[in-house]
């Protein structure tokens, strides 16, 4: 009841091609996350699915029907906009309830659903306010609330949590996950947050410059990135890329090691390097190294560690987790 197929969707603004032929199959009830660098076309793709943007060519098939020309209102979707797009003249409550009211839902049913959503999003104290009187995070929550009260089959979220604080973000993320499970709705979600992407998604779609780089489950992407781009994009801090020949590996062009797969030792190891900068995050420590052989390296250690800039350390890659890429930047498997 919420399957989606995109068939070579293309979209241009004037001569500028933003989507370069997107093919995608989303099964009913799946949770799909779009990630990709800023400006790669995530929002545009989401808007095309919603029917807000006319695609230049290609087809949007929802539940097996070609809906490329169906108006958004008839596609049975809910969407959270990156710019929130709240109705400035309505209160929070009416912002959330308008769609239901329009659909002729009974008053007390609206009341109930809005009550539930606003409880879930801690919005109760603000129900009577207008958007102008809310903080950024509160507005974002209203936008989410507006989408979820309608309980459609297909949800589109454009960076819905970017303005929330960590605690609320975790909480809302869990709520969305629960919603997904309980409604069995299909969800398509854009985020920049790695944790969100890794924890929520059934399937992550990595976009780059209007094209799909890889589609896969979170751990697939983490463990077996198809190419340098995906390898670099998934995981934070970014994977270290080292010119293969510098380290004597001639079967690849580039090798990649994630920061968490480097171990440091003051005594011995594969690559000698100088500590450049140390970041203490509490639970982790990020150490930036400069090595003659491999250039800049980032290592991520669990817990707290005292390293001083200019200290010389040895970094050893975990051989089981070394990625190798060919001249075309494709992973060698």
């Amino acid at each position, binding site marked *: 009841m919420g399957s989606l197929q995109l068939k070579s969707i293309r979209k241009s603004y004037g001569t500028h091609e933003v989507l370069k032929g997107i093919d995608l199959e989303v099964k009913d009830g799946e949770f799909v996350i779009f990630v990709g660098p800023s400006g790669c076309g995530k929002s545009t793709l989401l808007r095309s699915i919603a029917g*807000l*943007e*006319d695609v230049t060519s290609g087809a949007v098939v929802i539940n097996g029907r070609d809906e490329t020309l169906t108006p958004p209102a008839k596609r049975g979707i809910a969407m959270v906009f990156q710019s929130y797009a709240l109705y400035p003249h309505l209160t929070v409550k009416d912002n959330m309830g308008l769609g239901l009211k329009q659909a002729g839902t009974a008053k007390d049913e609206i009341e109930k659903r809005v009550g539930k959503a606003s409880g879930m999003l801690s919005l109760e104290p603000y129900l009577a306010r207008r958007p102008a009187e809310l903080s950024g995070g509160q507005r974002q929550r209203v936008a989410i609330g507006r989408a979820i009260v309608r309980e459609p089959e297909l949800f589109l979220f454009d960076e819905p949590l970017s303005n929330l604080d960590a605690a609320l973000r975790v909480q809302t993320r869990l709520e969305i996950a629960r919603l997904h499970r309980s409604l069995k709705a299909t969800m398509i979600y854009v985020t920049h947050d790695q944790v969100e992407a890794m924890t929520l998604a059934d399937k992550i779609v990595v976009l780059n410059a209007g094209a799909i780089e890889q589609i896969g489950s979170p751990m697939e992407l983490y463990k077996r990135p198809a190419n340098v781009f995906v390898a670099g994009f998934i995981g934070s801090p970014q994977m270290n890329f080292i010119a293969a020949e510098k380290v004597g590996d001639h079967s690849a062009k580039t090798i990649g090691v994630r920061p968490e797969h480097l171990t440091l030792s003051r005594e011995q190891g594969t690559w000698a390097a100088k500590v450049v900068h140390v970041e203490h995050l509490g639970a982790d420590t990020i150490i930036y190294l400069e090595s003659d052989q491999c250039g800049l390296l980032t290592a991520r250690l669990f817990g707290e560690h005292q390293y001083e800039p200019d200290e010389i350390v040895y970094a050893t890659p975990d051989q089981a987790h070394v990625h190798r890429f060919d001249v075309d930047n494709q992973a060698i498997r």
Partner: protein
Amino acid sequence: MSETDNAADIVPIKRPVRWHIFVFMLPALIVYSAVMVLPLIETLRLSLYNTVDGQPAFVGLANFKVLFGDPRWARDFWNALVNNLIFFAIHMCVQNPIGVALAALLSVPKLRGVAFYRTAMFLPTLLSFVIVGFIWKLILSPIWGVAPWMLDLIGLKFLFAPWLGQSGPALIAVSLISNWQYIGIPMMLIYAALLSIPEEVIEAAECDGITGWAQFWKIKLPLILPAIGIISILTFVGNFNAFDLIYTVQGALAGPDMSTDILGTLLYRTFFGFQLQLGDRSMGATIATVMFLIILAGVSLYLFVIQRRMRRYQF
């Protein structure tokens, strides 16, 4: 809007008929066409007819030939057109800048008494031209003496002259009266436009050090340009249709010596007649058609050239 931007060029699939467009257009179209357009066409049609031997007959463009060929008609017409252009120029240079300035002042945040100022400054616009004409004739009258008395207060009495009675100043004086009356229109439109600029953009400008005048010129003005476009075209259309005020202030003959005659007064005099002059519907319709073409040219220029180039910003 964006949703249909490129539909025509590439996607060959036909979109379903959008009935709502018809529904939105229909009531306005019906009332407007039936009560306004058809009667007007009926009238403009008369420009191709004239009375020949006591019978109305189709004469083609003969009426236009008379209007432009007959020296007297042509003289009256060109005189009116030139006066009208002056009239328009004065509105553009006086009324609109002052209106914009007033709107800008009114929109200064946190100002007290804005509602009062706004109402007071809009009051002249609310008045009927009968009132405006009457009051200003009195004020400028050398007999009643309000204007000379006030000039005397600031020691400028020698500047006073019976302006409305002198061919040179009369047109300027009438234009200024009209400016006084209609300044509320640009003021209100620009005020509404200024208010729709988002607060945060202005705040960003404040932080950027762009304040006061610079803020107006560099931020607000570009954002209200479409509204300025509207007031310009409304002024243009309004001025080329104007006649009421001149009728009441200077009479139907737009004295002295036709020096305040504009197209509107010429048209009304011709079409409806005046005193012993009988209304000449054919020549009136001819003048109306020419005026219509002039205004149409202006409006088309605006719609097809200026408005298309002008960027609009969605807030």
